[in-house]
């Protein structure tokens, strides 16, 4: 992966105002974010934390109150960039009186694609999102999941380099969710960049390379998923079944040397834990970014962790208490 920035925001802020220009809500506060080419980036945060606002600012649907955003090297309000972008909105805002074939044809035309190319592309996408059977039915008759699927197909009509997905798995059945995740990973394998928002943390954990957590419009956490989830203060030892003496002995050994361990691992918490902790902390420390232990508390945390080394029996992984 090279580190060329596909999306770059500089102290991006958004204040929603009412008709008279009075401030209603500060939806985004001084966001600095970089998304690199070829990665899957997850944007997390509780409801109303500004995820959708961020996406809309990136797409030029909203104008920033302060700061700026660059996407694929051009300013967010520039329409030319849209040529290489695919966007799946939060809810599928499509024309309900069209059927899915017409929908894809319509969006294909908007990319100035000639008829033959449009036909091939929509054929492929309908197959991909498994809507071939429902292609002649108007979107108003679609179920929520089907609407999501056609929304996804529409986002991919131009074979985009950068895909922005707002809650891609919402409304999908488990199978659809699985497909969606495979598809996102597949997109990355093709060298495309994906930025997604989601609440479904397990999905994010499965696919994302890096995540950012927003709360009340502020960036709280930013980093690579594995690093963020590494519990640096804890060392996990996995051995075959051990007697009490053996454990005691190992403890003694640990005190002297470190070389005789059979297996040393860094067990992970779940993304869910991190998410919840972040949101709770945010309430206690407003306006401050949550620094994961890996960066700040490494020294102290290691001392504390020595007292509670978990020892797992058998092959099963064990969580830290």
């Amino acid at each position, binding site marked *: 992966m090279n580190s060329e920035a596909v999306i770059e925001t500089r102290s991006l802020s958004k204040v*929603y*105002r009412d008709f008279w220009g009075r401030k209603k809500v500060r939806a985004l506060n001084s966001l600095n974010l970089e998304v690199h080419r070829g990665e899957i980036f997850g944007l997390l945060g509780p409801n109303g934390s500004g995820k959708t606002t961020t996406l*809309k600012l990136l*797409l*030029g*649907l*909203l*104008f920033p109150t302060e700061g700026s955003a660059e996407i694929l090297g051009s300013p967010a309000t*520039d*329409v*030319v960039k*849209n*040529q290489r*972008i695919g*966007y799946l*909105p939060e*809810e599928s*805002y*499509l*024309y309900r*009186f*069209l059927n899915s074939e*017409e929908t894809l044809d*319509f*969006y294909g*035309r*908007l*990319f*100035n694609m000639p008829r033959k190319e449009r036909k091939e592309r929509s054929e492929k996408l309908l197959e991909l999102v498994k809507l071939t059977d429902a292609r002649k039915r108007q979107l108003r008759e679609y179920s929520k999941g089907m609407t999501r699927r056609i929304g996804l197909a*529409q986002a991919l009509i*131009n074979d985009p380099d950068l895909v922005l997905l707002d809650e891609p798995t919402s409304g999908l059945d488990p199978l659809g969710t699985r497909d969606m995740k495979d598809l996102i990973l597949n997109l990355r394998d093709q060298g495309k960049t994906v930025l997604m928002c989601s609440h479904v943390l397990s999905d994010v954990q499965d696919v994302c390379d890096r995540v950012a957590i927003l709360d009340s419009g502020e960036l709280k956490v930013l980093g690579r998923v594995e690093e963020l989830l590494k519990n640096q203060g804890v060392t996990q030892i996995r051995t075959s079944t051990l007697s009490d003496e053996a454990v005691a002995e190992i403890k003694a050994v640990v005190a002297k040397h470190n070389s005789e361990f059979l297996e040393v691992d860094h067990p992970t918490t779940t993304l869910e834990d991190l998410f919840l902790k972040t949101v709770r902390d945010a309430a206690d420390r407003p306006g401050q970014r949550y620094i994961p232990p890996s960066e700040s508390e490494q020294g102290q945390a290691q001392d504390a962790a020595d007292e509670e080394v978990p020892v797992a029996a058998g092959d099963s992984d064990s969580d830290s208490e």
Partner: protein
Amino acid sequence: MTFNPIPFDVLAGLVNWAKVVGCVFAAVFVIAFLLQIASRGAQGPAFFFRQLVASVMDWLTMSPRRIWALTLLTFREASRRKVFTIGVIFIVLIMFAGWFLGDSTERPEMQVKRYVSFMLTTIGWLILPVVVILSCWGIPEDIKARSLHTVVTKPVKRNEVVLGRIFGFNLIGTVALLTMGVAGYAWMMRSLNEETRGSLTARVPVYGEISWLNKQGNEALQGDNVGDIWTFRSYIAGNTKARAIWDFTGIDEDSFRKNPQTGEPELHLESTFNVFRSFKGDLERGILARYTFVNDSRGLRVSVDPFEVQEFRAGANVMTIPRKITYGPDRSLSADILDDLADDGNLRIEVECLTTSQYLGAAQSDLFIRLPEQSFASSFGKAIFGIWMMMTTAIVLSVCLSCVVKGPVAMLAAGCIIVIGKSFWGFLAKVASGDVEGGGVIEGIIRIHRHITPNVEFQEDSRRQLVESIDKVPQLYVQVSRYLIPDLSQFNMTEYVANGFDIPFSAGLLPALATMLGFCIPWIFLGYLALKFRELESK
């Protein structure tokens, strides 16, 4: 006939247009520039000019395929929402109309007039509300349902959105209009009987410029006023030197019709003069009048036989004059109208009244040369095209308003502008020029309060000056708004068709076309700017 066709002066119109549009856009840009400076400070000017360049680029890089996609989308949306049910209303209307319109005892021209007026008026009033409602709701609904968001995240420019919408609504309107036009035409053909159908013609008149000589034979601005309040016609006294003179231009071979029997070319002069009697005289006999062809540069004056003008006979008075006129004692002299009497295509005809003490009334449109007939279908088609142009103007107005405000507000605004433009534009023009009786707002209030009739002048003092200068302010406002509201009566060509005339190009279609383009072009730009610099998301 009461209309007075004046050829449209394209150049003067263009200059005037450029002035008004220049002022409007200058105002828009200055305000935008100042706003940018106010909100961005030192970066304002740079931002402004970047956006200006981007806007110009938007127009240079438009894609026909994208516009067509949006046009088709608009058309599909409307047709799936079943707008074409107005066709049903139309059919029901004309089915019942037959009961009230049909009166075969009437003179054929009157029957034709009634049918044609009804048909064109119905079509106009049916199509207009439908397209206005559709166009006012289109973009706001698209924004509200956020489907436009998905569209603009594709490489679609805002001008393409505006144009696509306009074309789409126009396509719907055009389909509906054509269908109603064809159906209406067929229905008229079926409901009118054989004899009446003969009156469905499209006469092609060539009008001249009128000028006057008074009783002493001196040039005058008008003829006599016989005390008629309605001053459309003015009068020439019988057996005096008073004359009404018409100057026709562009006379050539094609200005003559072929005599059906001999095939000889002849000039058809058709007149609708009026008579004013200073005494009753012999009512059975009309008033005598006479045409004289005048070619001053060759010193030729050729009179043809006098004819009778009868005020109680309906219809036009037609006189056919062979191209080669024989005149003088024993008809020994002859003159060719085109070669001898016309001077480089300019033909002057003097009209005099020969009956002593009686008066002949004339207006510019009372004398014309009739060219070979056009088909009624073609003039009906032109009237439909007039409605089409009005519809287009209304659509562009509505779509562009809906780029700025929400549906209901856009509808109200468009409705107001259309009603004013259709019915009150003449009044507006009068108020703007200060010609309206009873003065301005304050003066009017004072007159009502003190019971002073409009024809009593106020005393000339400082208070009057004060009132007049205050009244100038609303008058100025009306003057400005008159330039921003189109005169939709230009598009109404019913009068021509109903009276059996072809619709002239330079006096009928051209001003309508100019009005349509003159308003639509700047509106489209303003609508585009409004949509471009509008945050779609925030409500």
